[in-house]
């Protein structure tokens, strides 16, 4: 099916990113927006825009009825959900399927299966993909939990099988804590995620976060587009991502990439997806699948030369992958800095207001993906991402140099931003040497 008309069920920079891809592909783009987002660039630049509700996400970007209503009335061929919001919502994907609208992402049944992390973990184990020590079937009792924990040794993570994005995880240091927390965790999981299934994973003290970008067509062909490292996080929120990674040797990276492809095939994955791993010294462990395009996809684009959004649309329109694995080479280095409207002096509290003057950096090795412009009102309703600064060059060293000079050039007046944090990171000796972990940011933010 050729996609001629595409509805974008998202906002902000990713909506703009998809509008751009559509324009370059000659696809008619329609952006859905909330009243709050009326004067934003994606709304202005899309071929069409439909207001679907009030500012609050529940009323608009999460309101599947309104989105489907707009999609059917406008006869769109496909819906791109971006990231967040409805992007990994199996029920929404199923409604799209019912209405014969192509959901740009994996099939609904695949999304449902992926949602159960313990299940994917068990498939990984079956396929020989390394997973963190722990159990793969839902824990039946606190006794079973105690047994597993004892085997792998404390500290451990007690996780809700249906949790995600850092939610539904408890770190437990000793047995009496486990006994106390187990019923609470069950209860919370039931309330928050609709299932009290729990499982245990070994807790790594100082891991690195490495992920593999995968692309799969609807005919079983799967390729990977190399790795990204996203260890620089604040409370499970990625702040700075890079591609490829210094976390593992070239040989280990190749094994990791192959494992990701194997796992993607094993769960019948289609479209673009990310397979996340934790790395501890020279070992990697599969963690979870992110069944959507990710915020950090540009670092992969800059190191492979492949436009991921266009490939998503191509695959969704039923085309076979246009790349064979051997044609994909990750070259050079890229880094992405998330520019957030946050106040670094106030515990990174979101900062709203009017961005009176916005000057973005330019020049060689700089890419800016942002939906904001001088004079725009920044709402407190949505996430604080103002845009992404992506730098790229021959080496990680060159990225750091370009990153530093670009940070000097960014100027955003009217809202507080985390630019000062990025400058601190770029000037940090450990960061420069690549000595990072998911705890790295604590030195600046806690």
């Amino acid at each position, binding site marked *: 099916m050729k996609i001629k008309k595409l509805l974008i069920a998202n906002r902000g920079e990713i909506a703009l990113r998809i509008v751009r891809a559509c324009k370059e592909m000659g696809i008619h783009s329609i952006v859905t927006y909330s*009243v709050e987002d009326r004067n934003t660039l994606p709304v202005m630049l899309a071929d069409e825009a439909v207001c679907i509700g009030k500012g609050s996400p529940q009323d608009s970007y999460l309101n599947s009825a309104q989105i489907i209503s707009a999609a059917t*009335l406008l006869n769109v061929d496909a819906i791109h959900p971006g990231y967040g919001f409805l992007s990994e919502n199996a029920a929404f994907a199923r409604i799209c399927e019912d209405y014969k609208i192509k959901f740009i992402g994996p099939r609904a049944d695949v999304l449902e299966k992926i949602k159960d992390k313990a299940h994917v973990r068990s498939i990984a184990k079956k396929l020989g993909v390394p997973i963190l020590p722990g159990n793969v079937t839902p824990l039946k009792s606190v006794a079973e939990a105690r047994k597993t924990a004892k085997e792998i040794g404390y500290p451990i993570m007690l996780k809700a099988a249906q949790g995600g994005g850092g939610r539904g995880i408890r770190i437990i240091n000793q047995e009496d804590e486990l006994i106390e927390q187990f019923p609470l965790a069950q209860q919370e999981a039931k309330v928050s995620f609709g299932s009290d299934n729990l499982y245990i994973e070994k807790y790594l003290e100082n891991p690195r976060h490495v992920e593999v970008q995968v692309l799969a067509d609807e005919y079983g062909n799967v390729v990977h587009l190399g790795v990204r490292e996203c260890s620089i996080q604040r409370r499970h929120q990625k702040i700075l991502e890079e591609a490829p990674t210094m976390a593992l040797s070239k040989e280990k990276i190749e094994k990791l990439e192959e494992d990701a492809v194997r796992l993607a095939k094993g769960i019948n994955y289609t479209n673009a997806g990310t397979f996340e791993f934790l790395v501890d010294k020279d070992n990697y462990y599969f963690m979870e699948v992110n069944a959507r395009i990710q915020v950090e996809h540009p670092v992969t684009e800059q190191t492979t030369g492949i436009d991921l959004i266009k490939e998503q649309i191509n695959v969704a329109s039923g085309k076979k992958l246009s790349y064979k694995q051997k044609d994909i080479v990750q070259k050079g280095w890229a880094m992405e800095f998330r520019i957030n409207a946050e106040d670094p002096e106030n515990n990174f509290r979101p900062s709203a207001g009017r961005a009176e003057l916005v000057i973005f950096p330019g020049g060689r090795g700089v890419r800016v993906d942002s939906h904001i412009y001088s004079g725009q009102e920044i709402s407190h309703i949505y996430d604080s991402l103002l845009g992404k600064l992506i730098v790229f060059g021959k080496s990680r060293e060159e990225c750091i140099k370009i990153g530093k000079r670009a940070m000097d050039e960014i100027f955003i007046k009217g809202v507080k931003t985390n630019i000062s944090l990025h400058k601190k990171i770029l000037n940090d000796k450990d960061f420069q040497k690549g000595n990072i972990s998911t705890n790295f940011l604590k030195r600046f933010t806690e």
Partner: protein
Amino acid sequence: MSKEKQAAKKSITEEIERIIEIAKKNNLEEFSLKTERLEISFKSRGCKEIAVQASQDLSNKKKEDTTPSTHFIVRSPLVGVFYRSPSPGAPPFVEIGDIVEPNQTLCIVEAMKVMNEVSAGKGGRILKIFPENGEMVEFDEPLFELELLKEDED
């Protein structure tokens, strides 16, 4: 406060508003005026206006005019298809010039096979009907313009 004073006071702010409106309509950047009763001067063009202009220049979306304060707009509560009558062939719920009750149905917006009746919420006289029958409407899109009818008008 006496009725007379109220009228006088109202007329000053109204006068200011009208003066600014005239200046804006004529794209004046700076303006000053001196009469017996008042002396006024102002400069125009901040960046917000420019930013909003950007949105108008960059996009081809339909824009609404401003409405006088004695009028009000009934907007679509959802994305759907606008129907002026309960069923094909049936007479429209309302016509221009009709005086409607707050809870009277003005139209139907159909979304996903569900018929949503829309009323004004306030009593008024229908002045304009914006969409065509059968047209798609988006959330918040103006459907009707009404003249407010005050019960205790004097």
